[in-house]
């Protein structure tokens, strides 16, 4: 029962914070709520015994990506939505289509064979050794590719963000 309670607390936290990400007026608040959401997902990962991934998630998302987001929002000074009021039609359409997608996906799951009450196989799947061995044997090539992707992205970001000299 304990784990169910934790699950519901974490899930409601992540859902509520995700909603706040979308509906907060102030971008800074959106960023903060997204961080909360990520931390709740961190909790989910721990629940699923993926400790290594949980920490990596924390370091990468909360520690790096969101700092970058916050940084940009602060630098661009987007503290208030200074956009003029526009027609609410797109927003209504957004909500409707989001809801439709949810319905379709849930319906698809329902019609398909959902994994039922399988008890989780809480072995050492999430341990560093296991994941590391996977990465450096079966997934070595993708791993190297991602490193290339990464360096390309880094160079690209530097080039893009650098001020052009006139």
């Amino acid at each position, binding site marked *: 029962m304990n784990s169910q309670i934790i699950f519901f607390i974490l899930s409601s936290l992540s859902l509520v914070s995700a909603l706040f990400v979308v509906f907060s007026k*102030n971008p800074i608040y959106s960023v903060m709520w997204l*961080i909360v959401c990520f931390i709740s997902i961190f909790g989910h990962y721990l629940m699923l015994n993926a400790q290594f991934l949980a*920490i990596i998630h924390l370091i990468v998302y*909360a*520690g790096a990506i969101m*700092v970058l987001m916050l940084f940009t929002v*602060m630098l661009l000074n987007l503290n208030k939505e200074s956009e003029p009021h526009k027609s609410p039609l797109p927003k209504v359409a957004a909500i409707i289509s989001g809801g439709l997608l949810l319905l379709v996906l849930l319906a698809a799951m329902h019609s398909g064979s959902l994994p039922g009450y399988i008890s989780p196989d809480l072995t050492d799947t999430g341990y560093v050794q296991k994941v590391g061995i996977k990465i450096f044997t079966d997934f070595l090539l993708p791993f190297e590719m991602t490193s290339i992707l990464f360096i390309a992205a880094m160079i690209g970001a530097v080039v893009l963000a650098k001020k052009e000299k006139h």
Partner: protein
Amino acid sequence: MTIFIFKAVLIFIIFLISLGIAAYSTYAERKVAAFLQDRIGPDRAGPFGLLQPLADGVKMFLKEEIIPTVSDKWLFILGPCLFMVTALMTSAVIPWGMPLEIGGKIYKLQVADLNIGILYILGVVSLGVYGIMIGGWSSNNKFALLGAIRASSQMISYELAMGMSVIAIILISNGSLSLTAIVESQKGLNWNVFYQPVAFLIFIICAFAECNRTPFDLPESESELIGGYHTEYSSMKLGLYLFAEYINMFISSAVISCLFFGGYNFPGLDYLNTVLPVNLVSLISIGILFVKIFFFIFFFMWIRWTIPRFRYDQLMRLGWQILMPLSIINVLVTGAVLTFFNK
């Protein structure tokens, strides 16, 4: 259930010790500064001024609580809280000593023995940026924002080299990420610092930067930015910021002791283990760890009152162009040496 009670008590004690050490660090800082400058330092409140932290605390509490009207109130309050929380959270994975034996049961002196202990520390440290950024931004003050941005970019930059230097340590301590395992692998005088001096150097430099201590205290450099990110803060919220910095210093000293100086290990521990009762040995080991921690706290202060502050570009160059490559080379060399000589 007793394990939970024990853990709760342990957490509480660590909390108190952290606060206490942070409080006395402020006192020690002033004392050390004074001594290094041929002065005496605070000595009025209590014998040798030992009650000075208390007086400072009281003063902080009694100061007027100011929240700027143009600031974002919630974030303004959230900032110091976050900073304090992240500072305290790090202490969860540090092994404080040999296990205690109470009522025939063995209790580890560690809140949580995660098998990813070091990563946990890095992760929590990376969260520490938020406290500073939020506080600095929500103050709605140019100096505070500049301080916050400096702090965040500095912390992100140095975190990388820090992580890389830790990898070398993981390599030589049987590939375990758990702090207990790392400490256990340094029995006797088999300390990592002797095998990994370069990693130690990188780590300690990065620790200075992560704690925003001189010579890396650009985020709060009073001569340029008044107070940096906490320019607008006053009263106990300022107190929290200052306090949390000292807690950070304490924790990073503890981490350095555990990673590089054998934690609670000292030569002769095994011998004592055979002669003395378990709990006494445990207490001695705790004492040893704290001696090391105090040395590093002193070292932090010593450095602060010796070396002047970097310029911002120098800081970035040091982080990216020197420490980063150096730590990567260190990892490569360590790996190569391990591969060629251990097989």
